């Protein structure tokens, strides 16, 4: 039985849409569930502040939801694409776009739930701080969403770039690799950024006078956790925009696929680990504001060391792309 290219393109697009929405729903659902649980806890502690807590829960959940809305958008585009002019390379772009957005939404969805939950509990503890807590939560959650936005950007580029003039092999592998690098690379940074923002919201409620210092250190810590997602995005861009010479053999294709996988998986650990570090630093800056200098320095040194394995992964990816 002969199956034509259009049929295979449809198979890839529908599979990609399933992966995008299936994986994309995991993170946001966990994050929002955590927020709601914390909101319930907060209301039971201080029922008089229930109005503010309820509002803050909904706002926080709406931000966590955005990661899965990105996945929904990509899934819809994949389902309703025009398959009549599909070329062979479209099979891998559809699959890669779905994988990228599905995996990329997991970390940000879970991560955004943490600050929202902490803001709800903080409002029960310190109702006068609800304005400041909401601002802090919004900033923290917005930074958590950036890895998902990187994944969305990569998916859009994959879907709307014409790769048909490139040689089929090894471009198909470069495209799948690009999707995996951005998608997997977003998991750790999204999760890590959420951990940092959680303790910042908690600390601002416990010790309102340290709120500005806490927000500053949160932003610094989150910026470092985002670096591994940026490495993933960088490798995706190289894989998507570099012209690779045509080759019939399997090895160059596997090198490009492997470069994407290496950077994507390698970014998960440092992203989460740096999040843990910054989380503790932010927590203790509100308990002991006089130790700001020591805490900031130790946090940055610790994060730099945790970053090293992410940099090894970047080096191996670059070697796979440019040297091999």
């Amino acid at each position, binding site marked *: 039985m002969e199956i034509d290219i259009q049929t295979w393109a449809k198979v890839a697009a529908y599979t990609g849409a399933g992966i995008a929405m299936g994986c994309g729903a995991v993170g946001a659902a966990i994050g929002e569930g955590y927020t709601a649980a914390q909101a319930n806890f907060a209301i039971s502690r201080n029922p008089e502040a229930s109005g503010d807590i309820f509002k803050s829960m909904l706002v926080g959940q709406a931000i966590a939801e955005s990661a899965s809305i990105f996945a929904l958008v990509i899934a819809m585009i994949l389902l309703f694409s025009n398959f009549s002019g599909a070329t062979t390379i479209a099979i891998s772009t559809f699959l890669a776009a779905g994988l990228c957005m599905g995996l990329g939404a997991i970390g940000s969805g879970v991560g955004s739930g943490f600050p929202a939950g902490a803001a709800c509990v903080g409002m029960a503890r310190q109702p006068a701080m609800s304005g400041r807590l909401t601002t802090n939560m919004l900033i923290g959650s917005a930074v958590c969403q950036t890895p998902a936005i990187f994944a969305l950007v990569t998916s859009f580029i994959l879907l709307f770039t014409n790769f048909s003039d490139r040689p089929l092999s090894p471009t198909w592998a470069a495209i799948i690799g690009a999707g995996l690098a951005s998608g997997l690379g977003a998991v750790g940074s999204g999760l890590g950024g959420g951990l940092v923002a959680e303790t910042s919201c908690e600390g601002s409620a416990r010790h309102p006078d340290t709120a500005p210092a806490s927000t500053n250190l949160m932003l610094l810590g989150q910026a470092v956790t985002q670096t591994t997602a940026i490495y993933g995005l960088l490798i995706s861009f190289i894989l998507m925009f570099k012209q690779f010479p045509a080759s019939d053999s399997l090895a160059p294709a596997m090198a490009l696929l492997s470069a*994407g996988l290496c950077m994507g*998986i*390698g970014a998960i650990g440092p992203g*989460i*680990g740096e999040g843990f*570090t910054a989380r503790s630093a932010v927590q203790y800056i509100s308990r*002991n504001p006089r130790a700001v200098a020591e805490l900031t320095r130790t946090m940055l040194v610790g994060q730099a060391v*945790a970053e090293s394995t992410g940099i*090894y992964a970047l080096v191996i990816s670059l070697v796979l792309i440019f040297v091999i």
Partner: protein
Amino acid sequence: MAIEGAEIIKAASFLGAGLAMGLGAIGPGIGEGMAAAKACEAIGKNPNEAGLLTRTMLVGQAVSESTGIYSLVIALLLLFVVS
């Protein structure tokens, strides 16, 4: 298109190198982050011992980094020596 044995070995060693470094980076990344987290907590509780705590943190992180370096070595061997 016939794929030769040498070609498959090369392709597998590239894929193996990527997986080795990628998966190998997860553990040290999380572990070193936890070590640094506890160092930050301890400095928050007792800032006078910041020097000692930072030194201990760095030694601990260096040890947990070793598995990441093993992964890097294996990845480089797969890329440049084996294939």
